[in-house]
Each structure stands twice: as C-alpha cells, then as structure tokens.
C-alpha cells in the first residue's frame, strides 16, 4: 500500500535524479582532487544519457496498462496479484532499473579541456539540479504529511 502511495507520484523519478546527481558529484569531485595528477584523464557521467534513459523510463511508466478483457471495471480491485493496478506499479518501478545503468558508464575525456573553471561550472550546475530535485521531493513529502495528519503543515 505504501509503495503505491510513493510510486503514483513523482517520488521514484526524483529519487533517480538525486541518485544521479550524487554519483556525478562524486566523479566531478575526483576530477578536482586530481587537478595536478600527471596523466589523469577527466571523468564524467553523461547527463544526456541519463536524461534519455529517464525519459524512456517515464514513458514506459505512463504507458496505459495492459488490461485483459475478462477483468471488468472493478475486477482490478479484487485481484491485486494478477494484472491489476498493483502489478502495474511493480512493472513501472522496474522501468527505472535501466536508468541506473546510465550512471555506471563513466565518460573519459582526453586532457584537452581539463580546467578547474570548467569542472567547477559542472559542479555548480549539478548541485543546482540536485537542490531542485531534493526541494521538490521534500515538498511531495510535506503534502503527504499534510494529508496524513489532516492539517496544513
């Protein structure tokens, strides 16, 4: 029941964004740490690849569920372990598994544009994205808390 509360909102989506920005921050911090390391090649995680994977996952998630004709309008509520809404939720969460692969592939640049300025620029943009996702996430939870406690927090 809890999982359906979370998965029906944008929480799983934002979770992926926060995960990605955190992972990318670690990689970028490594670049700063190795500014003076001879032969070091700048590493990065591709935000474009992540965005593409995320878009695919979101599209797969919002696709209409396959409903068998034998189950009527209210049949879904009586059989949660078949092709009802619960199994749809499970399948939808599985769509995000592919997203995780996008931040296992580390990009390596040759030492052409290695500069502290560029790295710090990337870190600032990454941080902004992280703050945005965390901000919306905490807003979601605030709404949930308001609904549970029946009181405007």
């Amino acid at each position, binding site marked *: 029941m809890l999982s359906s509360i979370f998965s029906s909102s944008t929480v799983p989506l934002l979770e992926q964004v926060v995960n990605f920005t955190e992972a990318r921050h670690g990689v970028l911090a490594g670049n700063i740490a190795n500014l003076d390391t001879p032969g070091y090649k700048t590493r990065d995680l591709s935000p474009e690849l992540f965005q593409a994977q995320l878009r695919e996952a979101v599209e797969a998630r919002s696709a209409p569920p396959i409903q068998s004709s034998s189950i009527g309008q209210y049949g879904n509520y009586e059989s949660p372990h078949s092709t009802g809404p619960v199994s749809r939720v499970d399948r939808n969460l599985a769509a995000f598994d592919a997203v995780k692969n996008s931040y296992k592939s580390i990009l390596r640049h040759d030492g052409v544009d290695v*500069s502290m*300025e560029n790295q*710090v620029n990337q870190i*600032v*943009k990454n941080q902004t994205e992280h*703050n945005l996702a965390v901000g919306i996430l*905490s*807003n979601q939870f605030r709404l949930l808390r308001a609904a549970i406690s029946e009181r405007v927090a």
Partner: protein
Amino acid sequence: MLTSFDISTSALVAQRARLNTISSNIANMSTTRNERGEPEPFIPRYVTFQTDTDQTSYGGGSGVKVGSVEYSQEPPRMKYEPGHPDADAQGYVKYPAVDMTMEFVDALEASRSYEANVGVIEVSKNIMENTLRIIA
C-alpha cells in the same frame, strides 16, 4: 539559465589563459636564448580573444575564447654587455622587449575581469536559487 554559467566560465578560462601568457612574458624578461640554447631573445606573447558562437544564450549572449596567440612585433631591447656570451660582434645583447609596466597593468586587468566573471556567476546562482524557492 544554465548557459549563463557556461558563458561566464568561458570568460574565466580565457582570462586565465591571458594571465598565463603574462606570467610567461614576465618570467622570460631576461631570456636571451631560445629552447635549443641558441642566442635568440624570447619574443613576448599576447592572446587575442574572440566571441565564441558555440556558447550562445537565449537573448544573444555569447561566450569568449582565445582566438590566437600573437607574437610581439617590438624589436628586441639592445643592451651593451661585451662580456656576455650571447653578445654580438658590436658587444650588444638582445633582450626581450617586455614592458613590465604594461604587463602588470594587463595582469591587473585580467585578474579584475576574472573577479567580475566570478561575480556574475554568483549573481546567476542567486537568481536560480530564488527561482527554485518558488517551487521547492
């Protein structure tokens, strides 16, 4: 919004390149030989900036990049030092035409530009944080 960061960063990179050539000019103020050890004075270098159309923002803003590194056209400074191993037949040694006053004024300008661009980044960041405050 995020392109303004890229534009300011391009200026930071360009100004740092300019500072690097200035420090190279000052470091080589008395260099009378080239990298092969032949008597040839160091020629001061200057960077030229050009607008970078790869980085453009909505509203017509564009970044900057180092266009080229130019060599100074100034003739070398002749100094009478007959005992110097690199002196010519008349006893003159060719020293690089580095004008220290000019170099320091340029360095000051480059470092102030760098600071100004850091300030712009700070402003962009504040604007964005304020925007985020609306939804989060």
